[in-house]
């Protein structure tokens, strides 16, 4: 096969990629690369990865906790063997060619040895600069000023040595050399003394590394607009005027006020909060829409009401409410229902009332009155600006920036740059939200996988472990390791006492305390002890298994012990942290937790991970732009693709697109090129006029039956991509179909393309069939399409009169500048209210449109030659059937519902099935192409493996106990349990359930439902859990009282 990217001259392809930027986009890309067999260098300019998302409290439109959804990813990246994180890293130089680059990266000193630092935080506590108080007003400030904490947007302070935030990865301190006393005076060094791990290295020097990579992904993100540039809003002058990101921190439980919503001036609870939209967006200097602010303001208003009270007044001052993506309009409607007030006016200024520090805003009400209102807090919805490093990165990599300063890309290759082998993703190319960023990141990964198909897996090493010791039938020999975590645990919990207590627990043959259980030396110690003391169960009593369990399991394996003979007691989060002021109680609880862990550990058994083979073919359902793009990408990556299209022709809804809003490129040409390439590829099998009769199987092993004109066909494949698209709704209102002068936008586009549109006056009506009771969602495309066609009409005849009747103009991102251009060319935009829709009438064949101009409040009428309806984009009805075949959900509007709206926008909850294009939601060609790439990359992460490793802690049917009652079948959220009927040897029909281990996640719902102990989760068997429960109920033996009685122990007991 021929790779689409030019091969390097020497033909060398390096199986590694550099990702520049450790935000959510860079993180997604790193994980996708690693899953597909590409070694990753993740270079972040700051001290830790996570980006802006780490600062967010919750995310719209699901109100999921941002940190909770991203923390598992942070952890996964931090411990992934194929991802190297480089922090405080600046890319300096790139040489070589696509497939074989040499990139020079400068690493600024952290002054902390990452290998040694355990992230305990003792240094931060010791730093004297962390205890500085802000000088009071008027007080002379010769003393050193407290250092503003960047994570909390300067609303709190931090020491000069610090971990940016608790979940930061790398979980390692950093010295702020600019402020550090030792750096400026040569004295202090208190942190060095406090560090038990000896990790502070003041003489660390700047370093340079040269990375050999096949390709580069640049995803540096964005920065927020500095509202000081708009002094009329008083930011930096009035204390209670804050930015949206500051408010995000205020809302956050980990924020400066610990989640209490207070205003900065007097820490009082605000009763009235105003949100001002478009601060630094959509103005003369920045003619683009920042695309995320309408939704984040809505979210912040909702959360503030949740935090304080439903009576909290929240008023959002906006111009157009741009709720244009999946679930957004519904979210906006919900906010309105919950009492968030939306006022369509851009306030000119914010004035402070000097006595109360309240803020006064003058604005126009929706019913055209002038009002002055006082608020306790004003939140400025600041816009997105190009990343601070955009200029430098553009120079280093030879990228072009657009007039707004973002990276310039083309619609049909949204992640490509002018420089081959260098790709971009995220807000670097245009302001966008988290899912769009994640989609582009995965999409860029697909482009790079296309470039490096033969290099996959070349730099990935399999880890080798010594053979496992057989512990079957052995008496448990438990070793307990209790961690001090520096002072993190030991300052509250009496660790030596816990050790002494552990020593007396049944089957415990060894117990000791370690300063940092996770540090390298402790790991070695644990391994040595396992061998020396012939331990066959290990308990570590330290922090959370969420971050550290894999590390300890790895040590067990290295010592020749099965990884599942391990149990953890979290005495940090659950003892020293939450009972910080009750050390005795905390110690008692730590002993309880250790006792529970030991009780369970005694019953642990070795478990084996199963492997299932992966079929390397992929099924793509839908032959439109998205399906074609995904198919081409996967074929380019070396996989065999089956592309199924129900129509006789490929191309789908894009066949109707004749122009792009941005102008220039011809959509039909791109589509034709794409189709001919797909048709010519040997590893793409195109099935047109085909429908899906059935799909069976699971990730890695699907079997699909196709119905075609020539009969049935069976395909075996490892993954599925759903790209079934969407179509234009046929309106029933506004005389559509009754008068030939009433068209849809796509029909107008066709006429414009043929040059057969001779209308003098054209009236466009937006939201026809969208944003109503039947279809509460925004069709996203129509505003851009109306602007596009209006501009085309004006280009063909500058004297044409074009009117657009709209509800909100939702030209998000750079589309805004075309909205401006349309106004400048004389297109008249007139808003209408949902409850006063325009009326289209006909008399003597002449069309007229009646409407109310809402600003002058004047009823008016227009005689029109053409009335153009911006009809909704609707999902095909066949989605329902396909969803059933695939066991995946649809949303209430009939679009496919992804696994997670923010972080898994192309995945389904069902593994091995992916989603792209308008099957997900209405979107532009550019967005569909990005998501098609993303689906291809996600599918590649499945197909790249020869076998799929399954988690060992899965459900297992106990044949002798299961009577086939099937209670467990329905509750299983992963559809992993099925009921079987079979003929027993005595001829009777018997029933039993069966678990599909590829689908099972080990959640335990089945075990909880089963009345017969007929289904269990390995590693969490009822007897194991019972042992833990019994242990917690046991009276704790005081050192004076005799030991708890030895309990009978037997492996496999209770099964």
């Amino acid at each position, binding site marked *: 096969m021929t790779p689409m990217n030019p091969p390097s001259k020497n033909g060398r392809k390096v199986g590694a990629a550099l990702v520049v930027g450790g935000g959510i986009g860079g993180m997604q890309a790193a994980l996708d690369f690693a899953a597909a067999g590409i070694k990753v260098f993740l270079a972040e300019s700051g001290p830790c990865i996570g980006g802006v998302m780490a600062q967010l409290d919750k995310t719209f439109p699901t109100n999921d906790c941002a940190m909770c959804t991203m923390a598992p990813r942070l952890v996964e990246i931090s411990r992934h063997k194929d991802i190297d994180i480089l922090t405080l890293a600046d890319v300096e130089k790139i040489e070589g060619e696509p497939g074989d680059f040499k990139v020079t990266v400068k690493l600024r000193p952290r002054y902390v040895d990452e290998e040694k630092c355990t992230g305990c935080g003792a240094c931060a506590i010791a730093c004297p600069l962390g205890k500085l108080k802000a000088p009071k007003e008027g007080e002379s400030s010769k003393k050193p000023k407290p250092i503003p904490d960047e994570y909390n947007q300067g609303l709190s302070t931090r020491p000069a040595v610090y971990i940016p935030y608790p979940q930061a990865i790398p979980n390692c301190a950093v010295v702020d050399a600019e402020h550090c006393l030792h750096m400026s005076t040569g004295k202090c060094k208190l942190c060095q003394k406090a560090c038990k791990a000896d990790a502070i290295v003041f003489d660390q020097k700047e370093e340079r590394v040269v990375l050999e990579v096949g390709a580069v992904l640049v995803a540096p993100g964005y920065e927020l607009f500095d509202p000081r540039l708009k002094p009329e809003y008083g930011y930096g002058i009035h204390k209670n005027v804050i930015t949206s990101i500051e408010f995000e921190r205020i809302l956050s439980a980990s924020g400066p006020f610990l989640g209490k919503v207070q205003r900065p001036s007097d820490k009082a609870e605000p009763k009235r909060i105003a949100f001002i939209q478009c601060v630094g967006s959509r*103005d003369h200097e920045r003619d683009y829409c920042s695309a995320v602010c309408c939704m984040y303001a809505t979210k912040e208003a909702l959360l503030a009401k949740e935090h304080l009270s439903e009576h909290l007044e929240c008023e959002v001052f906006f111009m*157009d409410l741009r709720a244009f993506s999946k679930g957004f309009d519904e979210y906006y409607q919900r906010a309105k229902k919950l009492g968030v007030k939306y006022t369509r006016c*851009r306030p000119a200024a914010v004035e402070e009332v000097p006595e109360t520090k309240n803020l006064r805003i003058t604005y*126009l009400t929706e019913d055209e009155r002038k009002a002055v209102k006082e608020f306790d807090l004003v939140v400025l919805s600041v816009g997105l600006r190009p990343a601070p490093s955009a200029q430098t990165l553009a120079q280093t990599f030879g990228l072009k920036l657009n007039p707004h300063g973002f990276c310039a890309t083309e619609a049909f290759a949204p992640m490509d740059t002018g420089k081959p082998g260098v790709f971009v993703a995220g807000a670097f190319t245009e302001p966008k939200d988290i899912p769009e960023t994640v989609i582009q990141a995965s999409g860029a990964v697909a482009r790079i996988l296309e470039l490096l198909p033969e290099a996959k897996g070349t730099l990935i090493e399999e880890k080798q472990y010594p053979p496992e010791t057989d512990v079957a039938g052995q008496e448990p020999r438990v070793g307990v390791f209790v961690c001090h975590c520096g002072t993190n645990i030991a300052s509250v919990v009496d660790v030596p006492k816990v050790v002494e207590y552990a020593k007396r627990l049944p089957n415990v043959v060894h117990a000791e305390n370690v300063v940092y259980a996770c540090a390298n030396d402790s790991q070695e110690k644990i391994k040595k002890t396992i061998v020396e003391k012939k331990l066959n169960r290990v308990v570590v009593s330290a922090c959370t298994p969420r971050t550290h369990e894999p590390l300890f399991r790895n040590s067990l394996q290295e010592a020749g012990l099965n990884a599942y003979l391990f149990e953890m007691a979290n005495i940090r989060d659950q003892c020293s942290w939450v009972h910080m002021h009750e050390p005795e109680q905390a110690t008692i609880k730590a002993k309880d937790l250790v006792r529970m862990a030991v009780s369970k550990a005694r019953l642990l058994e070795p478990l084996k991970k199963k492997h299932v083979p992966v079929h390397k073919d992929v099924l793509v359902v839908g032959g439109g732009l998205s399906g074609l793009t995904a198919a081409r990408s996967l074929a380019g990556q070396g996989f065999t693709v089956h592309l199924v299209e129900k129509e006789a022709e490929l191309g789908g809804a894009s066949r109707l697109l004749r122009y792009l809003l941005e102008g220039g490129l011809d959509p039909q040409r791109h589509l034709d090129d794409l189709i001919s390439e797909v048709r010519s590829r040997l590893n793409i099998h195109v099935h047109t006029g085909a429908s899906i009769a059935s799909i069976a199987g699971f990730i890695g092993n699907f079997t699909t039956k196709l119905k075609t004109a020539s009969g049935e066909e069976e395909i075996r494949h490892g993954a599925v991509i759903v790209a079934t698209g969407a179509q234009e709704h046929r309106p029933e209102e506004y005389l559509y179909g009754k008068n030939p002068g009433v068209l849809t936008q796509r029909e107008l586009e066709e006429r414009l393309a043929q040059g057969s549109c001779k209308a003098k006056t054209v009236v466009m009506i937006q939201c026809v069939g969208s944003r109503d009771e039947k279809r509460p969602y925004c069709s996203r495309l129509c505003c851009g399409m109306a602007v596009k066609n209006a501009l085309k009409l004006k280009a063909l005849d500058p004297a044409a009169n074009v009117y657009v009747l709209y509800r909100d103009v939702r030209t998000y991102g750079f589309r805004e500048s075309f909205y401006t251009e349309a*106004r400048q060319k004389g297109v008249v935009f007139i808003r209408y209210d949902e409850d006063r829709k325009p009326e289209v009438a006909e008399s003597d064949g002449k069309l007229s449109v009646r409407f109310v101009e809402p600003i002058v409040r004047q009823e008016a009428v227009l005689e029109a030659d053409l009335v153009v309806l911006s009809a909704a984009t609707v999902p095909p009805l066949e989605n329902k059937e396909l969803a059933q075949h695939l066991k995946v959900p649809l949303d209430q509007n009939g679009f496919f519902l992804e696994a997670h709206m923010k972080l898994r926008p192309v995945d389904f909850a069902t593994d091995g099935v992916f989603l792209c294009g308008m099957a997900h939601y209405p979107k532009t060609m550019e967005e569909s192409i990005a998501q098609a790439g993303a689906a291809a990359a996600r599918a590649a992460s499945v197909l790249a493996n020869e076998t799929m490793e399954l988690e060992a802690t899965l459900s297992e049917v106990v044949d002798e106990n299961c009577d086939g009652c099937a209670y467990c079948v329905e509750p299983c959220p992963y559809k992993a349990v099925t009921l079987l009927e079979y003929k027993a040897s005595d001829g009777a029909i018997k029933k039993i359930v069966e678990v599909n281990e590829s689908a099972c996640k080990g959640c335990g719902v089945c075990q909880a439902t089963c009345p017969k102990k007929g289904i269990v989760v390995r590693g969490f068997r009822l007897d194991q859990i019972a042992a833990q429960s019994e242990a917690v109920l046991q009276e704790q033996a005081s050192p004076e009282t005799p030991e708890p009685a030895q309990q009978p122990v037997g492996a496999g007991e209770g099964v």
Partner: protein
Amino acid sequence: MPEKIDPTLISEVRKYGHFDVDACYACGSCAAVCALSKDSALFPRKSMRHVQVGLREPLLASLDPWLCYYCGDCSKTCPRQTEPGESMMTLRRFLTAQYDWTGLSARMYQSPAWELGALAAVGAFMALLIALFHGPMVMDRVELNTFAPVMTVHFFDWAMAAVLSFFLLSNVARMIWNTMFRGGSAAPLQSYIEEAWSLAWNGATQIRFRECGKNTARWAKHFLLVTGYGLMFVMIVLFLPWFQTDAIHPIWHPQRWLGYYATAVLAVFTAEILWSRMKKEEQIHRYSDLSDWLFPILLLLTTLTGIAVHIFRYAGWPLATYYAYAVHLIVCVPMLVIEVPFGKWAHLTYRPLAAYFQAVRENAARRREQAPAGPQGAEAQPA
């Protein structure tokens, strides 16, 4: 009845000067920041919207452009830099032309050739009149009243005042018809009577100007200029025989110091207006239409030639005095003929009237609110 949209309105308005509402997305910050706009007159957004959408009749019926004194706050605030303040200025020109039934105003605003040509024609006519009808030129001493007999000039004054008043008042009648009767519900006579004081008060003080923006110096300067202009108008139109004398009165004589005061403020403030327009430092002076220049230039020239007449008379230079007087009239008369009914001068009439009508409208609205609902309430309004 729904209003018919007129797509040609915006291009027509553009002929009267700067009108850049193209980038406007009707965000409302202009009307929010404006110190003078209020519920009953939410300009400049509404006026801009009338033009943008093509609502000709509602625009003609609106008083809003006259209620704006152009402090420039809206233009400074506009996030799209669409210059609403300057657009209001253009609308005042447009409305002046709409009120004028002769069509001369429209022609002169739209064409510099027409405007300058008309001024030159009237000036030439004036020169001809003087050449033909001036009195004997006494050369051994200055006898202005022999060269230009004061009663002849006074009669000419009155005749010109009558003609110009006819044109101006007929235009005012059209303004009243457009704004107070056509389309909307007429205000009761009671309202006109109750609010009559505001006409005199606003005309005399331009007090609304004082509330416009933060810079009250603009109002003070304008107020002083108006006092000078008004004083000169009274002295010339009503008391010319007392004002134009050959005898030189002592300095404490009111003719002297009143004349000096009026001359001084006219000279200083017209010069100041022209100077700021040239500097373009302030937002409000970024754009200048020909008509913005002509009125102050002519006023300044009139004042300067008037000063020249006075100086030459003092110096005892007869010929210079007569020529200066002739030039004084050749500048002054065209200025008045063209600017009073058809040009910028007309704002002296339209602004206080608009403020008055606005007060009448608000008065009528209050009455409507207070009137008991039902047919009686509606009938209570006189036609």
